[in-house]
């Protein structure tokens, strides 16, 4: 399915790599270079790196390596994610965009037909997000807001297919549910990063995950996948699900 190609890295050296589409996920690629196998996305902003990732130029396209130690979505993919709700063309409401590490790859994946509404409330991260990521990528709408005040960005965000939440707050699941009520389409899906330490240090991570999943179920959402992100992120998990069918 994949053939050996020659790739040019940003510093001009020529490497021999194997490029293949990810067997399951649109917009996601694999670049194998000798022993080194990595995830990658096709760059929407050629010539720019966001967080020091590798760039490969192959057959006239540019690919950015996607580091699972820096991005929890990449970690989830490597840890056996079954279904990635984020597809080419998706509209994504992304809570906790930080300086845009993951957002930049999501931007590559959804491509020019998709949109990411990237919410972040820390001023410094937001500034980096705007300066280093949004300016080069027309499919990101940066929103400086607190995700707790869901309605503050009502006039900028339409209904979306995907809600991605990584805000490391104790009550983040509740915050995500509120956002889903306002913004998630009927058949939309969510991805929630659970960092058990920021929810309850005294509890076992597995118990924290269980409690968060139960909260989602109670509020009318299914939990279809629970993926532990070790060894890429300690005590982190990703939950994926959707709105339950109305009885």
């Amino acid at each position, binding site marked *: 399915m994949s053939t050996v190609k020659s790739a040019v890295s940003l510093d001009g050296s020529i490497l021999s790599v194997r490029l293949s589409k990810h067997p399951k996920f649109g917009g996601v690629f694999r670049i194998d270079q000798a022993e080194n196998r990595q995830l990658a996305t096709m760059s929407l902003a050629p010539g720019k790196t966001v967080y020091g990732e590798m760039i490969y130029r192959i057959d006239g396209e540019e690919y950015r390596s996607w580091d699972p130690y820096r991005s929890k979505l990449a970690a989830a993919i490597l840890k056996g994610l079954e279904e990635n709700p984020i597809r080419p063309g998706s509209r994504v409401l992304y809570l906790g965009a930080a300086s845009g590490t993951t957002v930049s790859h999501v931007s590559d994946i959804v491509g020019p037909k998709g*949109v990411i509404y990237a919410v972040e409330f*820390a*001023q*410094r991260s*937001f*500034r980096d997000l*705007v300066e280093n990521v*949004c*300016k080069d990528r*027309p499919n*990101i*709408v*940066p*929103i*400086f807001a607190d995700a707790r005040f869901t*309605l*503050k960005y*009502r*006039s*900028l965000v*339409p*209904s979306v297919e995907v809600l991605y939440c990584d805000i490391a707050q104790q009550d983040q699941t509740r915050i995500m549910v509120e956002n889903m*009520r*306002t913004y998630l389409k009927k058949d939309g899906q969510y991805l929630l990063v659970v960092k058990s330490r920021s929810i309850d240090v005294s509890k076992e991570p597995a118990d924290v995950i269980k409690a968060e999943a139960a909260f989602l179920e109670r509020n009318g959402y299914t939990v279809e996948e629970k993926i532990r992100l070790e060894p890429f992120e300690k005590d982190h998990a990703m939950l994926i699900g959707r709105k339950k069918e109305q009885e």
Partner: protein
Amino acid sequence: MKAYLIESPVGLFLIDKTGKIVEKALFPRNPKDAALVFVEIRKGVLPAEYEDFTKRVASLDIERITVDNQATADLAMTIGGLSKVELNESDPAINRYRTRLSGMLVRLQLIESKDDYEKLVRDVSLELAKTAIGEAATRRDLFAVQTVRTIEDLDKVLNLLAGRIREWYGLHFPELDRLVEKHDSYIRLVQNLGTRDNFTEQALIDQGIPADKSQRIAEAAQKSAGAELPESDLAWLKEVCSSVLQQYKLREKAEGYTDKVLAEVAPNMSALIGAVLSAKIISIVGGLEGVAKMPASTLQVLGAEKALFRTITTGARPPKHGVIFQFAPIHTSPRWLRGKIARAVAGKLAIAARMDAYGGENQGVKMKAALDAKINELKTRYPEPPARKPGQNRTYGPPRREERGGRDDRRRFGGGGRDRRRWSPGGSGGGTGGGGGPRRHDRRDRERRQMNRP
């Protein structure tokens, strides 16, 4: 009739029950101008050029306007002749109209395509992002000011209460006062050990006091000249101690919080001189922008206004440093170097403040390294006090009060001071600027108390 009012980066739209746009105010299509208008709209204010929109709506005979957020509700209130504005954050009809808005605008040929609408939303968001970046910076620094003022208030209260406890327990074990300098250590010992016969060497070591110090305290306890302390009195004193120790915990937390806020508001300044001291400087000036506008020479003597004033009125020696004296590398250095180091610190600090205020990058770590190098260079270049010039009667005695940023500050600062006792249990580690608990209470007060000793 009933209607719904929706704001969007494209304009304001009044929609009736059937989903028809019955009135509209279109914003400029240039994203910059649109963002300016939109910012006002989101504050609930309708810019003057859209006044006729309100007039037209007022003439429509509407009983009730439904909106889904507070700002739009405020705006709707300004429309004359309305009997009712209803705020419903999850109104299903508004939700529906919001989702359909771009389609409706295309049909009415107010915009070319849905893509165009999205592009406009994105461009306006980018513009909003830029203003938000500016506005947020000024707002957050005011929080920093409040947190550091809380620390200062706590220090005042703690200093008073600790003085009270020392005086009180001093009736029973007066010698301990001199032997334990740090307030929180003193109070913890009283709380944990109780009467002085429990101050055995082993017990003190268990409390984290170094062996030699423990021995001295234990000896003093045995020979103490203080009065007996009945159990009932001790119980009440302990209760006071425990509540004061709680306040120390609160102070520690307040510092942690300051660290957090400052890491956002002024990462460069904090990396250079520590969060608490940075916050104090922002607090004295009243805001980060103000600090950024100051020349280094002003920053150097900030907080020493009294001394500066004396220079002007009496021609006395100008102060060499103000509140930045609390920065450990200044006050722990030999006296003849302090002015020079203070100048170096102030120079770097001025640059850091500008980077923080005007959105420069994060260079704090680099700047700190450069500053450390500069300080070391000064130390090697001037290892000895300068020779006294003939006729000049200048001594290197204790600096005058104002040189140190005012008496109050001297009493309050902790973190790595000249006469800081390092053995204290639970004391915070070195760190730069701020940090630690309040200094001991007034020395004169202590001497007076000792003279009054029974």
